């Protein structure tokens, strides 16, 4: 009998095992590839936090590149990334817009008073329906929009120094110099 043939099962096992190893270790299975990259940011008509009677829509986002950050007071990771987002907004001058997601607006305003408010304004999505439009499945999430309102990058989880250096900064640089 051909001896080499005996190794076929072993070879199959090695192939299968390496696929499983890569599948389980290389990427976090909780992290979904975003379906919205290079798609226009969805339109909306929602109240602005802390400005009674005022509403915002997509028109208020278009015309300038933006970082849109989905956050809530019930989300500890949002607090963890808060300082880094503030630093990015200050140092790069990019407009930072918040979406206060499934939160109590009153608590949200207090949270911003306590921890600082780097946002140009915050859109209020109490029910989470706009979150569904955005494919949000957990806060924090951060979108980079170009001046045409197209989503160019999305981060699920906190924006920290490493993410800034490895992903967000290159994504912003890829947009070219600001218009």
């Amino acid at each position: 009998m051909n001896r080499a043939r005996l190794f076929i099962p072993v070879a199959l096992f090695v192939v299968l095992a390496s696929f499983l190893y890569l599948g389980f270790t290389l990427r976090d299975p909780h992290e979904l590839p975003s379906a919205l990259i290079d798609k226009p940011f969805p339109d909306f008509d929602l109240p602005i936090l802390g400005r009674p009677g005022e509403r915002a829509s997509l028109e208020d986002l278009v015309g300038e590149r933006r970082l849109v950050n989905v956050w809530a007071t019930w989300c500890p990771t949002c607090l963890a990334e808060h300082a880094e987002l503030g630093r990015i907004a200050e140092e790069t001058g990019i407009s930072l817009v918040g979406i206060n997601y499934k939160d109590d607006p009153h608590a949200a305003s207090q949270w911003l008073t306590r921890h600082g408010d780097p946002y140009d304004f915050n859109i209020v999505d109490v029910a989470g329906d706009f979150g569904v439009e955005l494919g949000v499945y957990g806060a924090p999430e951060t979108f980079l929009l170009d001046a045409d309102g197209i989503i160019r990058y999305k981060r699920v989880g906190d924006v920290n120094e490493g993410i800034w250096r490895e992903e967000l900064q290159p994504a912003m640089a890829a947009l070219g110099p600001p218009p």
Partner: protein
Amino acid sequence: MMLRICTLLIATSGLLGASAIDGFDFSDPDLADRYRELLAELRCPKCLNESLASSGAPIARDLRRTVRRLLEDGATDDDVRVHLQERYGDFVLYDPEFRMTNWPLWAIPPLLLLVAIVVVGRVGLFRRRAPLDDRERERIARLLEDDP
């Protein structure tokens, strides 16, 4: 009496649980059926392996509400699937369509089955064995006699 009440409570607790998930009462029973079927085949994006029907995650509740709204607005089942897929990607579909990017997903199981059939065939489960010749029969008889 106490026992009866307990039995009744236990017997109806399942109904209560089910209605907590269903939550909504549709005026149209067809719509309610389609709603339940869709929830069973759509996957909760926050959970690794739970359908929208079975998940208690807040995002699943939001998506159930979305599915209900779409159905009531007259969306077809496919409209609902596409709506969620456009926002959450293929992950939400337990039964994704065949595309160039996901061919291994569809091709590997039948391929493995084929390999299994070939291997089993080779090993000889289905092969007819040749009958023993006289020398072999003699040898067996000798071995059996030697056996103490």
